[in-house]
């Protein structure tokens, strides 16, 4: 399988023992999955990012192979139930691995969306990136997807690590990003570099951000006797 060829040979060998265990007794995945990093290998994957934000880690790929082995061994409903359990009882690394593997499992949106929603409820950048970093993010409705992207912007997850941005970024996302940028400016903070590409096709929203930045600059250097200009966007709670 394509994914395994990217793994170092010793990892592949240890992995084969684990997948054989699951093929023989699919219930074994409940304990093989959490132990997989210890038993087969851990560390950065092809992206080189040990946190697994830019792309899957080695242990994500190993755990993905275990899920692929499970998918071959059990019917679809059992696969969905066990995937949900592995996610529920997983630590952050295990949860990230489940999210990264979702596109390989062919689960219905109804099984995928709750896992993505859980990942997007928290603040863990590794899980935010994994939830929106694969084509499985298509299972989210537009509102949930946009809020997920905004949270990535907010927590510093690079937009370049997300999937489906070219297809799904729309005017409403641009408005949300612009409002976020204006808030940052009002608080005297930088606009994240990743905001600008999301504003690219939406000149009115881009202009609002640029205007806020200019107003802020003017307010910081007032002419003697000049009134401070009011910000054109009220400050909102994050």
């Amino acid at each position, binding site marked *: 399988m394509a994914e395994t060829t990217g793994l170092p040979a010793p990892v592949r060998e240890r992995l084969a023992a684990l997948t054989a265990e699951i093929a023989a007794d699919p219930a074994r995945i*409940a*304990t*093989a*999955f*959490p*132990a997989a*990093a*210890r038993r087969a290998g851990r560390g950065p994957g092809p992206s080189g990012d040990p946190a697994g934000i830019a792309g899957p880690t080695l242990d994500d790929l190993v755990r993905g192979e275990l899920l692929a082995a499970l998918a071959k061994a059990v019917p679809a409903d059992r696969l969905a139930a066990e995937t949900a*359990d592995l996610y*529920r*009882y997983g*630590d*952050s690394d295990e949860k990230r691995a489940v999210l990264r593997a979702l596109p390989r499992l062919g689960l219905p949106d109804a099984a995928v969306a709750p896992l993505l929603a859980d990942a997007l409820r*928290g*603040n*863990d*950048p590794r*899980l935010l990136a994994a939830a929106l970093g694969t084509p499985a993010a298509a299972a989210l409705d537009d509102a949930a997807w946009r809020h997920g992207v905004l949270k990535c912007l*907010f*927590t*510093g997850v690079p937009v370049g690590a997300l999937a489906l941005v070219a297809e799904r970024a729309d005017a409403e996302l641009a408005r949300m990003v612009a409002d976020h940028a204006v808030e940052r400016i009002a608080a005297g*903070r930088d606009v*994240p570099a990743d905001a600008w590409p999301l504003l690219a096709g939406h000149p009115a929203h881009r202009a609002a951000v640029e205007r806020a930045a200019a107003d802020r600059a003017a307010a910081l250097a007032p002419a003697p006797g000049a009134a401070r200009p009011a910000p054109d966007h009220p400050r909102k709670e*994050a």
Partner: protein
Amino acid sequence: MRIFDPHIHMTSRTTDDYARMHAAGVRAVVEPAFWLGQPRTGVGSFTDYFDALVGWERFRAGQFGIRHHCALALNPKEANDPRCAGVLDVLPRYLAKDGVVAVGEVGFDSQTADEEKAFRRQLDMAAEHGLPVLVHTPHRDKAAGTRRTLELVARSGIPPERVLVDHLNETTVAMVDDSGCTLGFSIYPDTKMDARRMVRILAERGLERVVVNSAADWGHSDPLSTARTGEAMLAAGFTEADAERVLWDNPVEFFARSGRLLLDEAVPDEGATFAGNSLLRGARPEPGEG
């Protein structure tokens, strides 16, 4: 003096305690799962607790330069509540995780049939996962409960050196010693066992297979009672190496049998976050607020 506290409930302690423990020489701990001072009423309450023991608490300890491991189990007290019995069905998922170095606390509280059933089943799980076992001995009818504990351990087939029988005192030390199990002593400010009595036991039977812990939790207890025991040993004429044998080498030797001890230095990083959340209050690191 380097200290490994093999039994301490850090979820009940403050960041001040972590700082004082590090200053006193504590560099690693094992936090066994126990009850909360009031009953849990369902499985979800346990799994959230287990998630914290393998997650947030490990992070918190690391921020103070202390390596945190845990032992997981359905504790004897709550093994009597049928609403919590389902914990045993999800426990194997947690026993497979990194940083889980034993099954525990298991054992007896009121010595009921339900407690014995949960105890036996968890001894089997320990054997299956290759994990040591941390056994709580009861506060009431201690000698009888300890005797029954040793019978069940012998019957389980788990080698005795992989079983730590805890909260011992003068009335139970001999039978546990004879069994070949590791002997655990919880040093409390004024109950169970104190540092002076502990030193007397060490002088009488020697240092091998003995570990000392604070068992500090939400009750009247002292997270530095391990250090106090070390000082009492030195005052009684034991060497620094003797004290470190009891307070570091012996617990390390015991839990290393899990193959999952991590004892490299924990380096605190003020700006670090766990799952996006930090220990800081007030000004937060950017990005990733909230």
